[in-house]
């Protein structure tokens, strides 16, 4: 008996050290890792998408203005095929009133190793994570280019991400031990997001073009899952600059989704919302902090009104949202030298 207890204690200590090493050494703070930090059943909205999701919607601002809590299951160039698995992942911990699904990556870009890793590395180890990896390996370009990627051993490197990251000890620095200054309840604010880079004015066209069979298969698979799981979803096409091909493919996708009975908001065609291509973008597919503020105020209000979201602003359990919001404001001042509230009040007008 004594030996069994000893072995169990040994393993527990091993796991604790492992967990610490894993966090410090291998996994940087990402929006998905911040998602896991939220208490169970505390989020009202779960936003799924790529970088344009967590760079567009300022969660703490939305909380401060409308009182609902939003979490991100999003990462840089996150492949669209992840969506189904991320909803499954979310359902383990949260019961949001609505899932906002950014469909940008359904028609734009393809999955390379880094994209697969970005999202799945931060996910907790589970069968769902393995399924997500397998699904992405099935559709990703690396499989097409390199038959070896299909091998079991290669999938193992995705399942057990420490096999890749253990070597990161060479890059360890003070940053690994300090609090993230990039993410604020999932929303990202760095030097990039304060830049103003004028983009070419983009006008949405009505042309329609079918998407490749494989992409349609992924979309239908997701819609089938949503049908069966009975979760509330809202699809969004973010306000960006698109190629004519992507533009017409999104028109097709919108039709497919709407035919299945789900709503799609195209932020490029609204009468009362439009990002300013001269001042509110930092590149063709990302709002800067100003565009994000405008977007959050508009979309936050929409969500609040259409999904009857609760107001947690007086709830003591949500106190951390104010703390993080203050840190965000401090960071904004650090980066720009200006007051966040002054900027906000301009947009509120």
């Amino acid at each position, binding site marked *: 008996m004594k030996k069994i207890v000893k072995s169990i204690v040994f393993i527990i200590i091993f796991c604790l050290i492992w967990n610490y*090493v894993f966090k410090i050494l291998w996994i940087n703070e990402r929006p998905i890792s911040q998602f896991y930090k939220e208490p169970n059943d505390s989020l009202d909205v779960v936003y799924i998408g790529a970088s344009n999701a967590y760079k567009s919607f300022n969660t703490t601002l939305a909380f401060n203005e409308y009182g609902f809590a939003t979490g991100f299951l999003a990462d840089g160039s996150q492949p669209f095929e992840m969506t189904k698995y991320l909803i499954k992942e979310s359902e383990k911990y949260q019961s949001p009133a609505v899932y906002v699904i950014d469909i940008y990556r359904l028609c734009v870009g393809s999955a390379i190793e880094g994209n697969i890793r970005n999202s799945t590395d931060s996910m907790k180890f589970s069968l769902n994570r393995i399924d997500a990896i397998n699904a992405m390996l099935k559709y990703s370009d690396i499989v097409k280019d390199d038959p070896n990627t299909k091998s079991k051993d290669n999938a193992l490197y995705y399942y057990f991400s420490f096999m890749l990251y253990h070597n990161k000890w*060479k890059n360890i620095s003070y940053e690994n031990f300090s609090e993230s200054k990039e993410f604020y309840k999932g929303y990202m604010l760095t030097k990039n997001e304060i830049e103003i880079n004028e983009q070419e004015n983009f006008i949405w066209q009505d042309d329609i073009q079918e998407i490749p069979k494989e992409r349609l298969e992924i979309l239908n698979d997701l819609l089938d899952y949503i049908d069966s799981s009975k979760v509330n979803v809202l699809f969004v096409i973010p306000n960006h600059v698109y190629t004519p091909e992507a533009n017409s493919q999104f028109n097709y996708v919108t039709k497919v989704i709407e035919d299945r009975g789900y709503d799609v908001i195209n932020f490029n065609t609204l009468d009362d919302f439009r990002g300013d291509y001269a001042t509110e973008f930092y590149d063709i597919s990302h709002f800067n902090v100003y565009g994000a503020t405008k977007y959050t105020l508009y979309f936050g209000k929409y969500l609040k009104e259409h999904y009857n979201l609760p107001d947690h602003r007086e709830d003591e359990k949500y106190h951390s949202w104010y703390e993080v919001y203050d840190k965000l404001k401090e960071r904004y001042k650090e980066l720009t030298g200006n007051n966040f509230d002054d900027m906000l009040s301009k947009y509120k007008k």
Partner: protein
Amino acid sequence: MNLISLSFVLLCIITLIIYFVIPKKIQWIVLLISSLVFLFYDNFSLGTFLQAGVVLLTTYTMARLIEKNRDSKKAKYFLITGILIVLGVLLYIKYSNMFLSMFNSLFGIVGLNFKFKMINTVSLVGISYYSLIMISYMTDVYRGTCKAQKNILKCALFVYYFPILNSGPFIRYGEPGGVENNLYNGHKFSYEHMCSGLIRIAWGVFKVLVISIRLGYFVDTVFSDLNAYPGIFTIIAVCFFPLQLYTNFSGSIDIIMGVSEIMGIELPENFTSPFFSRTITEFWRNWHITLGSWLKDYVFYPLQLSSGIQKLTKFCKNHFGKKAGKKIPMFLSMFIMWILIGAWHGGAVKFIIGSGVLQFVYILLEDLLTPISEKLNKKLGINTDTFGYRLYQMVRTFLLFSLAMVFFRADSVSNAIEIFKNMFVWNPWVLLDNASLYNAGLDLLDFRILIISLVVLFIVDYLKRKMNVREKLFSQNIVFRWLLIYALLFSIIIFGCYGPGYDAADFIYRGF
């Protein structure tokens, strides 16, 4: 199946679970099934099945026939037949192409326009190991040092016992502790054995993943582009290679011994801190011990006792005196033995020179020069009983071995000569110019990890000569003990060379 692979880990876990769940009487069947899985995992075909079947059937039948006819002359014929068949299959599978290319070169030299076609043979893992084990088994039955196994399946387990198929060690049917006791009788689960075995496995993995592969990066970078890495680079690579070989080979042996230990199976040690040896003779008593003792028992001593060598001894005694008369035939037997050691490593001339002839020359010179050096030391008043002198002897032994290993590592004899030439390029400043030194496969941080790991390795190896290190570890208080174990485990996890971008940890001796 690689020793550091998920498939091997799974095989071991499944084997261990079933092994300890079922009754002791039938535990050996689990070992046999696992051994067959391991044997055929990489190459399962009718050809490989027949290959393994023929030599097993030969070994089993000949051993039984030898035992039945022990008192008649037939026994000798059965032994010779058995050895010829096992050796024949080994030579055909591993060496036929080498012989054919030798013949082809010979035909070319004498101007014959004829060439043998190369044969496409598939080798089973561990063929060089199980073939010698089979030969020693038949010989032991012939000598009467052990009884023939009546059950062919048990015989199969002995010759194909899975952990040793990778890199040895050589086991013998009749050795103390015995196969009967180790493999067939079964064992109860022991917590102590499990802990001790797991630590040995971890230590082996540390040697391979943290040290050996890291050393390999430097060695491979330098040897693959000698022009870019002359002088000091080549010298360091030449010194690194024996360390790479040692950590790789002894690391795999640690894993093998650890897995066996968990099951309560004792295997003979194959290394005992060889780099603390003060002479080449001592070095070979501590390096690949089971191969050395196998060759001594089944080649050297029989040769010494053969009528030809006896006649030679007599002749030499009559013509060169008693001392030389004894030594000349002994050195001849030794020479044959060293040639065979070289040949066992692959038969190529570079192996015969590096692992055979040069080692023999060292031992010969050692024998001839030791009396002279002793006299010289006495005359010059050099105190040899000091740490400094012992260190000098160890470094000298290491350097001699390193030079011989150049042939082992080189692609060919001419490549080895090129490496030697490259060592004489004068560029010691690269040691001060960090940028270039850290550009040869290992950066500064890798070098640091390597040096720390090597220091730990040498400390442990030194302690191993004085005590049973694992017993000592287990006698420490729990906090210190666990700290050391966690340090070992996390060193492997963090600093090990594995995962994408790394070649799978291949074992150098697996190829033999």
